[in-house]
Every structure is written in structure tokens, then in C-alpha cells.
């Protein structure tokens, strides 16, 4: 029986050109650039300086404050400098430049392929290991995982939900990881269950990944408490609140966190990273990146160390096609078009999508025709055309009343608008302004 979320949603073409392509590691170039902000929260403080020798797994950036994540070197070599570098944010931010020498790893990291099933650590110890390893949400949001695993006072976790949906069109990195590292992901799930003290976990997989559903359903039988739930192919099925609605049939109240309905959601890539961190002492230094697009010669899934400039990955996939209009970091719905292909792979780089000019050009905006298509598709039950208008006229009080802060920025509204109105762009602007007002009010 297929489950799904109850409000809104769209179904863009899936275009999974890189599906089934085995994960291939990409060669490490002569220099990597590792940004000191690869997560939601405060940027890391560098703990290395020019001339320092580092190995794979050496700590190079330390957390500042609670909502932050450690950053480790993904290569071995010498630190060239700590300077500003352009990254996916569109701005230059502090990064550690490392000249690569060999491929030496920190001694404590277990590089063997043997499956490590047993774990006798307590919940607190598991969370500490996750925190030390700099694990963040691998779906692209990059929220520091250890923060999500410590429920605020007054809340209690009841169910762990593993987000193996990958609802964005084109992206297949999670799917391929699921097919190749099934057992590791299940062990990671068990570790997460132990960390938040629950005995129930549901792995949500969209119905366009039938091979993964079958493989996991069989494999999960050996892991107590873990079940697999197949989900309708609908966007944004992988949205945290939508997934909670689909799987446990609860709606997170406006302005509240998922933990308030007892749910903790983690991406399947995060579960894998947790396995590597806790069982193999391996910090987050590499990730699977999909390089894809209609005209890409060799759409593929790559295992890339953090800090490798994107142009290396694009070259591996056959180079930039002649028809290239936009290069997007992420998927076509929530990804961001980048201004340079020399920016590095970071913890949140789930994929690189190369869109031909004809399809990537945005049309000129026209007047709203009150068709309410945007209202119909909004998965949070908002009124996008109203929110855009309120933002244009700076009506922040009304925008707040109309729950502009509930917007999950999925892009369904902009996608359906027949007048090519940049609904999401304006709502995001309004959301930022209203959140600023709310913060100022609290202070």
C-alpha cells in the first residue's frame, strides 16, 4: 500500500538518467579547497595554519557554539593558506586550501570493508561520536545531526524516520548508496535508534526505486524494529513534514519542530555517515555526488572527497555540453544555479545538474491570473500568490499571520505558475524579513 502526504504536491518528470550507475571514486586533484562553513550554524574556527601537515581525517575546523559541525581534512598534504574562496553560497567565504601529497589517513580510522555490526556504546557516546565526526544532514540541508538527536526539554522521540525518498528529479546519489551499502545503512539506522532511545524506525522509499524497496525489505528482517514503507512518487515526498504526515499520519503544527510529534527524520546518506563515524571512526570527508543532465555524455554517481572543485567532477562526466545554460548545485527544484564551476564539493553537494539553455531560461514575469494552481500544490497549505503580494508591498504583519514562516521553499508554486511569477523568490525574501522581525521581537 503506497502512502503519501495529504496536502498539495506536484509530479515533475523524474529524468533519473544516472540511475543504476555504480558509484565511482574520482581522482584527487593537486589542491583542494575546504570551506569552513558547510553546515547550518556558525562557521568553524580554523585549527590549522599555513605549513601544517594534515592527513585524511585530521580536524581542520572546530565548532563554534552548539549549532555547528566540525570539519576534517579530506586529503593528506600541507596547508597552503586560509583565505576567502567562492563557494555554493555565491559569496567568497573562509576556506582551508590544502596542497595534496599522497593519501595518508589518520591511524584511528578503520579502512577495512568488513561489516561492523556490533556496538556497545551508550546513547550519549554515540551522539558524541557523531558530533566529533562533523556529521550533518546529507540530503542537502546540512543541519548538524547531533543537534537533532538531542530533543529539547519537554519533547520525546517516538519514531525514527529514514528519508530515503530522494524526491528531486535527476538526483540518484541516495538511491545508488542504498543499493551498494544496504547493510551499512541498516546498522547506521540501528545506531540512530539507540541514540534517540526508540525501538521503531521506518525507512521511507519512493516507489520509483523498486529495487531498493525490495532489497531493504528483505535485509531489514534481520534488524529488529526497522520496517520499510513504500511511498507514492510525488514531490516533495522527501520534505521532513510531508514524510512525517505520510508515514505516521501526524501533521507538525505551524512553527513547531518535528520532535513535537515525536518524530526524528534523518537522510539515508546521514545514516550511512553515522555508521562510518561510529563503527569505523571515520569523520565526514567524502560523499556521493550525482552529475547529470539531458545532454551530459556520462551521467554518473561519484564518490568525491570534500573540497574537490566541481569542474573535475564535470570533466569526469564528459565535460560541459555545448548546450549548457545553467549549472545547478542540487536538484532542479531546490538547487541553486552557480556562478562558477570552480567551487568545491561540500557536505551538502548532493548533485550537479547541467540544464540546457532552452530549458533553463526563466521567462519574463506576467500578472497573476488568480488561477489558484499555486494554492492547490503548496504542500504546507499556504497561499503563495498572496504571500508574494504581501512581500512586494512590505506587509510583514499580514505575511506573518498567513504563515509565511511555514514555507519549506520546495518550489512547487513557482513550478506550476502559468504566469512565470517568481513566487518562491519573493516568499523567501518575505520569510527572511519576517523571521528577522520575530527575532527582534524576542530580544
Amino acid at each position, binding site marked *: 500500500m503506497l502512502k503519501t502526504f495529504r496536502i498539495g504536491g506536484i509530479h515533475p518528470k523524474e529524468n533519473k538518467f544516472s540511475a543504476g550507475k555504480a558509484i565511482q571514486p574520482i581522482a584527487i586533484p593537486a589542491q583542494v579547497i575546504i570551506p569552513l562553513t558547510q553546515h547550518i550554524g556558525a562557521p568553524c574556527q580554523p585549527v590549522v595554519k599555513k605549513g601544517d601537515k594534515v592527513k585524511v581525517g585530521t580536524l581542520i575546523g572546530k565548532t563554534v557554539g552548539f549549532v555547528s559541525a566540525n570539519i576534517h581534512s579530506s586529503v593528506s598534504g600541507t596547508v597552503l593558506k586560509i583565505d*576567502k574562496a*567562492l563557494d555554493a*553560497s*555565491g*559569496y*567568497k567565504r573562509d576556506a582551508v586550501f590544502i596542497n595534496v601529497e599522497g593519501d595518508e589517513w589518520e591511524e584511528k580510522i578503520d579502512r577495512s570493508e568488513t561489516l561492523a555490526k556490533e556496538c556497545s556504546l551508550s546513547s550519549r557516546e554515540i551522539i558524541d561520536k557523531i558530533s566529533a565526526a562533523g556529521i550533518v544532514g546529507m540530503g542537502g540541508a546540512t543541519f548538524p545531526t547531533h543537534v537533532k538527536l538531542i530533543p529539547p526539554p519537554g519533547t520525546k522521540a517516538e519514531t525514527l524516520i529514514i528519508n530515503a525518498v530522494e524526491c528531486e528529479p535527476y538526483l540518484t546519489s541516495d538511491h545508488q548508496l542504498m543499493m551498494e551499502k544496504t547493510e551499512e545503512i541498516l546498522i547506521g539506522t540501528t545506531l540512530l535508534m539507540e541514540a534517540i532511545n526508540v525501538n521503531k524506525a521506518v525507512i521511507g522509499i519512493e516507489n520509483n526505486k523498486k529495487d531498493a524497496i525490495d532489497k531493504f525489505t528483505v535485509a531489514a528482517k534481520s534488524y529488529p524494529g526497522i520496517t520499510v514503507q513504500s511511498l507514492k512518487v510525488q514531490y516533495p515526498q522527501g520534505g521532513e513534514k510531508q514524510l512525517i504526515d505520510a508515514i505516521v499520519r501526524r501533521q507538525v503544527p505551524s512553527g513547531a519542530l518535528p520532535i513535537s510529534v515525536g518524530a526524528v527524520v534523518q537522510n539515508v546518506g546521514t545514516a550511512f555517515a553515522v555508521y562510518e563515524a561510529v563503527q569505523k571512526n571515520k569523520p565526514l570527508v567524502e560523499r556521493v555526488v550525482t552529475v547529470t543532465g539531458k545532454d551530459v555524455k556520462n551521467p554518473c554517481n561519484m564518490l568525491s572527497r570534500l573540497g574537490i572543485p566541481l569542474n573535475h567532477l564535470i570533466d569526469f562526466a564528459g565535460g560541459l555540453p555545448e548546450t549548457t545554460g545553467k549549472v545547478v548545485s542540487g536538484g532542479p527544484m531546490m538547487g*541553486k544555479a*552557480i*556562478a*562558477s564551476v570552480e567551487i568545491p564539493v561540500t557536505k551538502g553537494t548532493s548533485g550537479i545538474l547541467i540544464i540546457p539553455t532552452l530549458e533553463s*531560461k*526563466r521567462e519574463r*514575469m506576467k500578472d497573476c491570473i488568480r488561477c489558484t494552481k499555486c494554492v492547490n500544490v503548496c504542500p504546507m497549505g499556504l497561499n503563495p500568490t498572496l504571500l508574494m503580494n504581501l512581500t512586494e508591498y512590505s506587509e510583514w504583519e499580514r505575511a506573518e499571520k498567513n504563515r509565511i514562516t511555514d514555507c519549506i521553499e520546495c518550489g512547487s508554486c513557482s513550478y506550476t505558475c502559468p504566469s512565470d511569477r*517568481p513566487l518562491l*523568490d*519573493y516568499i*523567501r*525574501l518575505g520569510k*527572511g524579513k519576517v523571521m528577522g522581525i520575530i527575532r527582534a521581537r524576542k530580544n
Partner: protein
Amino acid sequence: MSVLLSAVATLGAIGAGSAAILYFVGRKFHVEEDPRIEEVQEALPAANCGGCGFPGCASFANACVKAETLDDLYCPVGGQETMDRVAEILGKIAAASTKKIAVVRCSGSCDERPRLNLYDGASNCTIAAALYGGDTGCSFGCYGLGDCEASCTFDAIHINPTTMLPEVVEDKCTACGACVKACPKDIIELRKQGPKSRRIYVSCVNKDKGAVAKKACNVACIGCTKCQQVCPFEAITIENNLAFIIDDKCRLCRKCVPVCPTNSILELNFPPRKETPPAVKEEATVNA
């Protein structure tokens, strides 16, 4: 006939009764307001632009009446003339203030600052600034999408379609500050208009290191400090590779303008300089 009479009588009675109710309710719930507030409001330009910092002219009039002194209150649209009239009405003294004007601190036109990519997102500077550092190598400079133009209620700032930079219309600008607030990169500043509308300012907000700034834009400030060294009034500060001329200290002597290697300092409404023959100039520097 009697139907007509009774109709007229009934309606007349209802009318009279309503009038009486309205009269007494009006008297009972009358809000006592200082009559001077309305008087002051009449003296204001009624633009309701918010330039004074209050939400509309009525609110500003209220503040003027309630305030001890008029020192911190100024209507930029009406100017000194209006403030003097308000002072007269209230028997207070208007503070002497300097006329200000909006100044756009970026000269990175399409010619001077090459475009590296094409932006086809929403035509709004704040949205573009949240997305990325812009379509040039300078992530501090003007996006040219017109948030300033859209915010101006006096039709005093427009984006020049050739340079893609905003230009201020001198006789329309009231220095209300709307464009300053609208610009997401803090490029626009309210500076003293100066005698004969003359002003000198560093037309750049780039904080990158000199070499990086120059690579992105020909007329960027590279923080070389030549201007600071030549200023006789200590009016120039250099912070984060960027020079800034302090309004209150600058005497408009123009010494800084020719020494800037990138022509980043602009002087507006001055007479043209006399050309100095190179030989004479060299002698002067040797002697100095």
C-alpha cells in the same frame, strides 16, 4: 395624502432622532486633541514619506508638539523652511541642519566592471543579493535591478540602462532615506549636499584586498591609502581595504581626487581643473 404625510413624518422623526444620537455620541466620545497638532500638520508637506522617521506627517506633527525641543526632529522634504514655520507655531526653536542628498557609492558600470555571468532571476536586488554575489567579480557592488528606484516616492533615483547604475536627480532628492534602506548592499549613503551642491566621496564599497578588487573593477578602491596621506584635514579613514571620507571633516579641498590611482574618488559640481604641465608637477613633488 395621509400616507404621504405619515411617511414624511416617520422618516423625519428617524432622521431627527439619528441626528440627535450622533450629536450626543460625538460630544460624549470626543477625543481631546491639542489643536496645535493639526496646525503643525498643515505646515508639513503632506508627503507621508517616512523620511522624518515617523509613520506619516500626522505622527511627526504629534511628535513635534509633544517634544521638549525640536533638536532631533527634522522634515527632510520640507527642509529648514518648514521646520522654522513649525517652530514658530509651537514657540520653540528649530535646529539648524544641513541639507543632505543621496549618494550612490559605486561606479562599477558595465564598461568598468565586466559581467561574468547572466542573471535571469527575479528582478529585485534584495532577492539577487540573497542568492549570490552578483554577475561580476565584485560581490559588494550594485546589482542594478532597481530596488532603490522602486522605493523612491519622489522620482529622484533611476537606473541608467547603459551603465546599469542608479543616478540621483539632484533637485528632486529630499534625502528621506528610503533608497538607503532599500539597498541590500548599503551602497547608498546620505551625505551633506555641500555649497553649490558640491560633494566629494569614495565611489566604492568593495572590502576585498586591492588586487582582487582591481581585477573585478577598474575603478574600485584598492585601499592604497594615498588619499589618506594627502588629506590635510584627517578626513579619510581606511578600513577593510576601503577608503571613506568623513562628511563632517571634509572641506572639499579636492586634494584626494587626483591622487587616487583608480579614479575611485568622485567630485561633483566642481569647476573643471586647470591642466598642470607634467614638468611643473614633477618639480613640485621633488621640492615637497
